[in-house]
């Protein structure tokens, strides 16, 4: 018996609906259809009047969620694809994110963002938006990479009093399986050493954790021991764990699937450089997707995002200094 990443997301929502009357689900095609990815399969039947289909109105979906949160509810909004949250951008960054600072009343909404690329999905169903949202004060941005984190971090996101962008990676939905939904639990705000090593540190999150581990396994054949840090949440950023790892290895590669201009990897490199310059034995490196829209064709797509091959290449360069 194994549990997939998407099962974990579904199970977490079921538990939340069962245990907290304030929770409801609002999104496109999520009721009787069970969602475009089946993350809410069966939940509308199990919880009548708690799971709602809504019009294709991403702005209004988040506006509704903020209003409901003001009234004491804890809505979970499913964006069908993270890419479509650009339509809701205003409500997320201006309405939800500013509310606590301006009025003193926190807005406990959780926005599920099916993120990242899969073969054949193309420019508008593949985006990674975490860096954009992390730039705004007042938002929490989580990026689970494991089945257990997908489950526990969704539960904790809903329990948390602030707006959370829960970035779930579509590539992991059915590909990633685990024997149990319960792994080594960590709270939001704490990073995990996904793979210990001593020659270089890869700091990454979401699906790229698995690509980094693959690359690390390959380099092991050459005698390199690569440490992989899974950030788990990009905001807050657990810089302590990152700095501790860099202190051990002296070398940093920041890895992400988002576009290369700015973003999470830039933030990591700049913070480590600022606070841990003395720990570095080599110039810190970044590896991201390419600076084009995410391409449709699987061959182009596979070369657009970082792969174990390109990660190995970046690491070899890092280790060559």
């Amino acid at each position, binding site marked *: 018996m194994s549990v997939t990443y998407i099962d974990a997301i579904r199970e977490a929502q079921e538990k939340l609906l069962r245990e907290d009357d304030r929770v409801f689900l609002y999104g496109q095609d999520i009721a009787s259809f069970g969602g475009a990815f089946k993350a809410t399969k069966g939940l509308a039947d199990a919880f009548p009047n708690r799971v709602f289909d809504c019009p294709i109105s991403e*702005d*209004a979906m988040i*506006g509704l969620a903020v209003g409901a949160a003001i009234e004491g509810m804890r809505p979970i909004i499913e964006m069908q694809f993270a890419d479509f949250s650009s339509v809701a951008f205003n409500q997320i960054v201006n309405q939800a994110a500013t*509310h606590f*600072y*301006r009025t003193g*009343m926190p807005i406990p909404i959780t926005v599920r963002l099916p993120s990242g690329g899969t073969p054949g999905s193309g420019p508008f169903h593949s985006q990674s938006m975490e860096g954009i949202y992390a730039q705004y004060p007042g938002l929490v941005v989580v990026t689970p990479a494991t089945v257990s984190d997908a489950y526990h971090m969704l539960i904790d996101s809903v329990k948390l009093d602030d707006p959370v962008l829960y970035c779930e990676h579509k590539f992991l939905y059915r590909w990633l399986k685990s024997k149990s939904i319960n792994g080594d639990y960590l*709270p*939001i705000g704490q990073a995990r050493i996904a793979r210990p090593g001593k020659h270089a540190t890869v700091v990454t999150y979401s699906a790229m954790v698995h690509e980094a581990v693959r690359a690390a396994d390959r380099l092991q054949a050459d005698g390199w021991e690569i440490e992989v840090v899974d950030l788990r949440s990009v905001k807050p950023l657990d810089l302590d764990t990152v700095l501790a790892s860099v202190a051990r290895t002296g070398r940093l590669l920041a890895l992400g699937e988002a576009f290369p201009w700015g973003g999470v990897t830039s933030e990591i490199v700049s913070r480590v450089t600022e606070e841990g310059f003395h720990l570095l034995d080599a110039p810190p490196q970044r590896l991201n997707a390419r600076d084009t829209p995410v391409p449709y064709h699987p061959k182009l797509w596979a070369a657009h995002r970082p792969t174990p091959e390109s990660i190995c290449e970046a690491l070899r360069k890092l280790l060559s200094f």
Partner: protein
Amino acid sequence: MLKARILENKLSSLYKAGKIVGGVYLGKGQEAISGSLGAALVQGKDCFAPLIRDQAGRTAFGESLLDCTRTYLGSVEGPMKGRDGNIHRGRPEMGMPAMISHLGAQVPLIAGMLFAKRLKGTLEGCVGATSVGDGATSTGAFHEGLNLAAVEKLPMVVVVANNQFAYSTPNTRQFACADLAERAKGYGIAGFSVDGTDLLECAKVVRKAVKRAREGGGPQMIVANLLRLSGHGEHDDGSYVPSNAKAGHYGRDCVEVATQQMVDGGYATVDEILAWQEEMAAEVQKAVAQAQQEAAPDPYKEDWTALSTKFPFIPS
């Protein structure tokens, strides 16, 4: 509406004397419709998301004058503590959320407050209302929010104060339909047009729409036709408003019209109204004086955090 006018005249003077930082945005010419809406709602039960020109509605709904003067004058005692200013204020816990500047955004927000009341089983007999201007009707948020409210059959009243100018842009560059109220049909909701310079008409139409919403009639849209009697803000002299518009029917001052209506209808005498004005002016003066004496926010005492959560977050 009278109190709002007196308060706003004072705010304008304070701005021109350099006592208010940022901007001052008046509801001059919109007091009849705004006040009618605020007066038709019940604080503690209904919710109301006012917009830029809703001083009259805010006051009628029950916002204190101090909330206004403290926010404009930057007192740390105000509801926004100096973190936001002027009309960007509210008390969400009393059913009056704080507006953001992005137009149309409060339409789905009010829908969400009503939706939550439905889920909690407390919606019965409640109404949610918000105001927008003619400019906001061009936004995606307005469309999405109103359509969503209609789909969810929520007891919502949306007032469109058609003051003919969005900042400087006239209606001819904003929309192409003859009457904005006709749009209601497209949303499957009720729509009304009213002369926004006529207090008695405004009160009648607003009360009817609020009653219909309260009784389960779904969203209601009221378009109040009027003219903005000030600039966009007090930094703007509104010189682009043509003189024939000012001289026309909608150019008349709704406060003067209402005063005449009160006297003609035997609701109050001229002397009584003058006495009210004096009383209100004193009240306004007191709220201004108090806010002016209060401390400004201290950057060294500010906690500079936009999140209420402390990390790592361990749920209780």
